[in-house]
């Protein structure tokens, strides 16, 4: 077995960026405050000094402008990593991502591919109130032509970016700011990971807990609690929200016959809606209970801690929900 090391999520992200910059001259990082400030969340701290302003580019507050510039640079042979400080501001760049990055290959009849990687800090849990607590994974996962990844583990924080940069097509990485200081063990020589399959993070036979992003560690923790009660929960980290890997969760449901989907995003028209629909379409006769969901409460995320916590599924909520499903 390989040697393990303890690393924070932030360090994992940073070492991936550094490795990418070292490996390929075409790669550069552009984003608000990525250089002199060291990254809004200190992910790129020190990289300006190491790689210089040509490769660590501070940009003005013009999300559409610099995201479009990243797309243009990718068209012209570079491998830009565009950092949009938080997913909330990506709304200002949606025209570029959806009308340009996602469509050019198709509109040009296959002539123009756009190998751009767009990283977005996202997630809830730091009392940032309604405008800074969005979960836009479902928005982007709706759009054909882009690849949407949810970085739910340290392993993926270390590895997804490297594979994303190999993709000929646009990739959006959702990184979770609430996990930045979280420590976990990964193998010492961890590196690139696949970006097309979901992963079974914990095997079990009683229920399939399907989730992504911040839901992964929460669900694993809940599964541990539940195992003490004799409930054997399988936890699936979707990882890739588009194109969705159905096979992994359908296989799991064929085994457990029960599913709970957990996510922070608002419930209506969400990733869980999609998962639920696919299960209905493709595994209906494997179901022994209706598919259940635990999602964000449909309210702009409030500022006070207790209300914020109540807005999205917590470990205890997952535990209780599973108990209710399995031992009514």
């Amino acid at each position, binding site marked *: 077995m390989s040697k393990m090391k303890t690393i924070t999520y932030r360090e994992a992200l940073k070492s991936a960026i550094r490795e990418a910059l070292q490996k390929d001259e075409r790669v550069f990082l552009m984003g608000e405050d990525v250089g002199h400030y060291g990254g809004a969340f200190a992910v790129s701290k020190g990289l300006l000094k190491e790689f210089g302003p040509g490769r660590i580019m501070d940009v003005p507050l013009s999300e559409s402008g610099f995201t479009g510039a990243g797309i243009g640079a990718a068209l012209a042979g570079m491998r830009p990593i565009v950092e949009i400080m938080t997913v909330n501001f990506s709304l200002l760049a949606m025209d570029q991502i959806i009308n340009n990055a996602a469509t050019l290959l198709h509109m040009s009849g296959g002539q123009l591919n756009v190998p751009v990687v767009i990283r977005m800090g996202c997630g809830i849990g730091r009392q940032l109130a309604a405008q800074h607590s969005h979960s836009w994974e479902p928005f982007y996962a709706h759009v054909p032509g882009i690849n949407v990844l949810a970085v739910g583990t340290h392993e993926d924080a270390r590895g997804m970016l490297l594979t994303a940069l190999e993709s000929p097509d646009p990739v959006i990485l959702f990184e979770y700011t609430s996990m930045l200081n979280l420590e976990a063990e990964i193998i010492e020589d961890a590196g690139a990971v696949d970006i097309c399959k979901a992963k079974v993070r914990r*095997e079990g*036979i009683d229920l399939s807990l399907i989730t992504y992003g911040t839901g992964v560690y929460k669900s694993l923790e809940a599964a541990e609690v539940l*195992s003490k009660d*004799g409930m*054997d929960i399988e936890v699936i980290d979707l990882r890739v929200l588009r194109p969705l890997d159905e096979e992994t969760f359908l296989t799991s449901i064929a085994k457990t016959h029960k599913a709970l989907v957990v996510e922070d995003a608002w419930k209506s028209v969400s990733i869980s809606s999609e998962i639920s629909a696919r299960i209905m379409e493709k595994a209906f006769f494997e179901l022994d209970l209706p598919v259940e969901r635990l999602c964000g409460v449909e309210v702009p995320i409030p500022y006070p801690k207790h209300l914020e916590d109540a807005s999205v599924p917590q470990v205890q909520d997952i535990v209780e929900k599973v108990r209710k499903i399995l031992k009514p």
Partner: protein
Amino acid sequence: MNEESIKNTIFQLLKRIAPEHDPSTLMPDENIREALNIDSFDALQFIVAISEKLNVDIPEEDYGKTATLKSLMAYLQQKMKS
């Protein structure tokens, strides 16, 4: 992995093979295959599942050590330590 979780794993796997029996009623020295009415094909499937789940290699000559719950537990614990 502690004793309790090994036991849980064994029970889960037995339940998959013989869903109509409750493996937790097994006596420690009872012959598992006889008690749960497991034929040689299912017995092999059980060994395959155990070795995959716990990541231990169970050579054929050790099959005898897997006959009862007690001997199987002892065997697996010793295997996993080494």
